[in-house]
């Protein structure tokens, strides 16, 4: 019996208190493309959300997870339409309600938190007004004063300091984290039965994410609302969701209680996702990566949509011909796979293989560099002059005395949140921005004094791969020409070299004849890597190079980068905000905060004995599978201070759980506190 059938049978008879808050059955959503084609984006989706429960809806981009929940609100965009299925809120069918009738439900019984707090609030309206609106709409008889009092109460509930003053400010006076708190206040204004959180923290830094999730959990606990947490982040759902539904290509492929799902995934896709996730606790030589990519919904394979990427399908005819139904297995679980019984065996085998690698071969010997320094930065600084109020100018110290020393064949990780200066560092190293002071030595000779032709020659040894795979390729050019460009600039073009480069990154020569819009994000990133390698550089700067990719694709690219490093003896500077990825690829790590390096040590040392309170806060803030709750005491407090007016003394002191009076007076220097090479900039560093 299918899951849907079980639910359908159960619903009418049970007592009212057992009626789920939300119950979705066989929901199908279609889009009509401009050329009149109908494409199913959500297919036969069924699930329930019970009282007080948090359901995690997980999937990569394009899996249909957000659409499903927009349908619940009756807010599908134009061209999108529910074809069949039912959505019941506390037993009431809502698919046949008019837009007008839904108005009474939206914001009252169900509310939603969108991803980007920058656009969720109307920039020209006062924040308090926007929250008040949510209350007034559903309580027309409440007086002005009463509403205002309630707004202020809500604002303080979500941890906004000075709510009275904040009430009449505009959104651009709030930081991203604070805005998201306002959005939470707005969503909770009428104490809805169901809260939908659509990637609520994806746009935020990890330390802020931890704070916001905390607030969300608190207000939810207070009102007892059920929640659907939509996210691509497995770590996050594992910490915050009771039950999970995994979506792939418009369908739910697995449903299970959170702990069980992570302990024993039954769908090969779930198992693959979990295996491909870089984890903080362990370092493996190669991550598992699900091959291929998510199919275009217009060209889904017949049979199981996951078949082309599945590790256990092995081309079996059943997988290729028949799409598996979501069948319940055990009390609370359901999975849509013909051979789900085999998944466990695959996971164990894969795990065993990992452990074998870890124990028997102590990491395969890398093609080691000869230990010479390839890239050295000494005392880099960069100051931006920012126009402030009126005619005054303020200085923003984007880089302060940044130094490092990178040996051939090694990878240096530069880690930091937004505002840390890590992207500025990349631009300065590449001479896309002029440094204010300091020097960069590439293969021993200074880079900053070079000009004109000489600079154009020498900078070829230092190449870059950027974050955004969509803007890194000229949309008009064929891929072959994209990769050939550096060769043509240098006057050494040959078609064989281009094909060789394509092969290096796992693409065929035939791919060179197509244009970039035909490629997926992961493939574009491969192309960008091939282009950066064209002139045989010594050092590659990877500026958030895997951050924009889905988990399964991210693992592919990380593995590719590692393989290239081994084959070609490359040296990497790996810039990222994601510590778990950094752990997998870097030999050394420099952690940055407000333009300074505040900790600099080997990867092992940073992860096993983080010395700086900020590093420890960062590590504690990363959501991870099967760890809950994290070390709250270590979390950084509050928001990033205004970088134009950094705090006196230690720049981190406003957020540091260990700060003392001394911290406000003296700025700690970056030094080794125990006689190791583990550097940190804190008066009370733990070595």
């Amino acid at each position: 019996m299918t899951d849907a059938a079980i639910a359908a049978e159960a619903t009418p008879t049970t007592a009212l208190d057992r009626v789920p808050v939300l119950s979705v059955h066989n929901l199908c959503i279609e889009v009509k493309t401009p050329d009149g084609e109908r494409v199913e984006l959500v297919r036969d989706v069924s699930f329930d959300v019970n009282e007080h429960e948090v359901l995690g809806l997980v999937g990569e981009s394009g899996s249909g997870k957000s659409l499903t929940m927009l349908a619940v609100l009756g807010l599908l965009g134009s061209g999108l339409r529910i074809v069949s299925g039912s959505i019941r809120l506390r037993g009431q069918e809502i698919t046949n309600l008019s837009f007008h009738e839904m108005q009474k439900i939206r914001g009252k019984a169900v509310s939603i938190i969108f991803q980007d707090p920058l656009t969720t609030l109307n920039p020209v309206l006062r924040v308090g007004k926007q929250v008040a609106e949510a209350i007034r709409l559903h309580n027309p008889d409440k007086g002005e004063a009463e509403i205002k009092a309630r707004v202020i109460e809500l604002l303080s509930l979500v941890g906004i300091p000075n709510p009275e003053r904040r009430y009449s400010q505009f959104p651009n006076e709030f930081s991203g984290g604070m805005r998201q708190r306002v959005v939470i206040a707005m969503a909770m204004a009428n104490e809805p039965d169901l809260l939908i959180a659509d990637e609520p923290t994806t746009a935020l830094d990890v330390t802020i994410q931890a704070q916001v999730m905390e607030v969300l959990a608190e207000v939810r606990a207070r009102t007892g609302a059920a929640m659907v947490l939509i996210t691509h982040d497995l770590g996050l759902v594992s910490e915050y969701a009771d039950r999970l539904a995994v979506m792939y290509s418009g369908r739910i492929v697995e449903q299970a209680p959170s702990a069980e799902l992570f302990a024993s995934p039954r769908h090969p896709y779930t198992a693959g996702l979990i295996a491909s996730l870089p984890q903080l606790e362990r370092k493996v030589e190669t991550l598992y990566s699900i091959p291929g990519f998510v199919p275009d919904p217009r060209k889904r394979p017949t049979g199981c949509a996951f078949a082309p990427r599945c590790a256990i399908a092995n081309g079996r005819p059943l997988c290729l011909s028949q799409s598996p139904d979501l069948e319940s297995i055990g009390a609370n679980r359901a999975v849509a796979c013909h051979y789900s019984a085999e998944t466990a065996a695959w996971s164990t085998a894969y795990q065993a293989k990992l452990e074998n690698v870890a124990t028997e071969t102590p990491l395969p010997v890398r093609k080691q560099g000869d230990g010479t320094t390839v890239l050295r930065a000494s005392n880099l600084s960069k100051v931006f002059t920012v126009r402030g109020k009126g005619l005054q100018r303020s200085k923003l110290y984007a880089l302060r005395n940044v130094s490092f020393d990178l040996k051939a064949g090694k990878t240096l990780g530069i880690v930091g949140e937004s505002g840390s200066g890590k992207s500025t560092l990349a631009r300065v190293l590449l001479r896309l921005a002029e440094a204010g002071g300091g020097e960069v030595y590439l293969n021993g000779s200074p880079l900053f004094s070079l000009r004109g032709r000489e600079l154009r020659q020498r900078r070829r040894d230092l190449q870059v791969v950027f974050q955004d795979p969509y803007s890194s390729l000229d949309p008009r050019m064929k891929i072959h020409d994209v990769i050939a460009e550096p060769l043509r600039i240098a006057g050494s073009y040959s078609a064989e070299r281009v094909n060789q480069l394509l092969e290096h990154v796992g693409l065929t020569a035939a791919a060179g004849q197509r244009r970039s819009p035909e490629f997926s994000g992961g493939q574009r990133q491969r192309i960008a890597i091939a282009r950066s390698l064209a002139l045989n550089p010594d050092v590659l700067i990877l500026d958030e190079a895997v951050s924009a990719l889905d988990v399964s694709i991210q693992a592919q690219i990380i593995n590719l980068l590692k393989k290239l490093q081994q084959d070609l003896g490359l040296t990497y500077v790996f810039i990222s905000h994601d510590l778990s990825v950094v752990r997998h690829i870097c030999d050394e790590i420099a952690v940055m905060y407000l333009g300074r390096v505040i900790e600099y040590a080997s990867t092992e040392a940073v992860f096993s004995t983080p010395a700086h309170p900020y590093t420890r806060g960062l590590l504690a803030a990363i959501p991870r599978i099967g760890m809950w709750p994290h070390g709250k005491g270590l979390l950084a407090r509050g928001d990033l201070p205004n970088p134009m007016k950094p705090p006196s003394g230690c720049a981190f002191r406003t957020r540091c759980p260990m700060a003392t009076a001394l911290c406000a007076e003296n700025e700690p220097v970056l030094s080794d506190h125990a006689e190791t090479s583990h550097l940190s900039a804190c008066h009370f560093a733990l070595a």
Partner: protein
Amino acid sequence: MKARFSPLQTIAILLLAVMAVLVIVVPLLPIYDPYGQNLSDSLLPIGGRSFNGHFYLLGTDTLGRDMLSRLALAGQVSTLIGLSAVAVSLVIGVTLGLIAGYFRGPIEAIIMGLADLQLSIPRVLLLIAVTAIVGPSVAGLAIILGVTSWVSYGRVARGMTLSLREREFILSARVQGASAVWNIRQHLLPNVLPQMLIVASYEFGMIIVLEASLSYLGLGVQPPLPSWGMMVAEGQNYLALAPHLAIMPSIALFILVIGFQFLSQAFTKENDLEMVA
């Protein structure tokens, strides 16, 4: 898919085809005679016939000249002025816009300051002032109209360049040692040009209207050469008596301008789709 035209494109092409017939085909016909005066035949209505059986499809003007022929010749003059002015302004605008956007700094400040300055003098006035001093001639008009119309191209080109130069594909070309000339030729120009052609097809209409306005004011094309604007001005005196004198050239102007406007719109839509996809 590719061979089919959208409704808007179809209409644009039809309108422009009508214009092409007027400007290219009519002068080849035996009845074509834009200068021949025949005072006895003056102010004949549309489809009018003279005493000696001479047939005028669109009637005659005050001096008894054939309206159809004059409309055709005026159309040739306007299109010629329009095309050369668009070419001049396109080249100036794209060059200045790309330079301003790519090099930034003081060059940009000067170029954009110039643009702002020019925008602060209404274009018609500027043209009046310049033609008043330089004196009107067909070549002079084309050049003046061209030189004073570069701003829209310049602004759009600069805007696009500003965003393109921060795009990673240009940054990575720079990192690979590409020179400014390389980047402008290989990446900026090809990415900016399609948009420029849209601006051009819109601007063409504007320039035609400007030229017509100047000629209407008596400051543009000078007699005996006809121009639509001038014909409207002449017709204004006979508005009650022979409205077709002012209306016919107005309709010609309308068809040409709206044809190009639709053309530019049709392209804009298609491009927007490309950007969404």
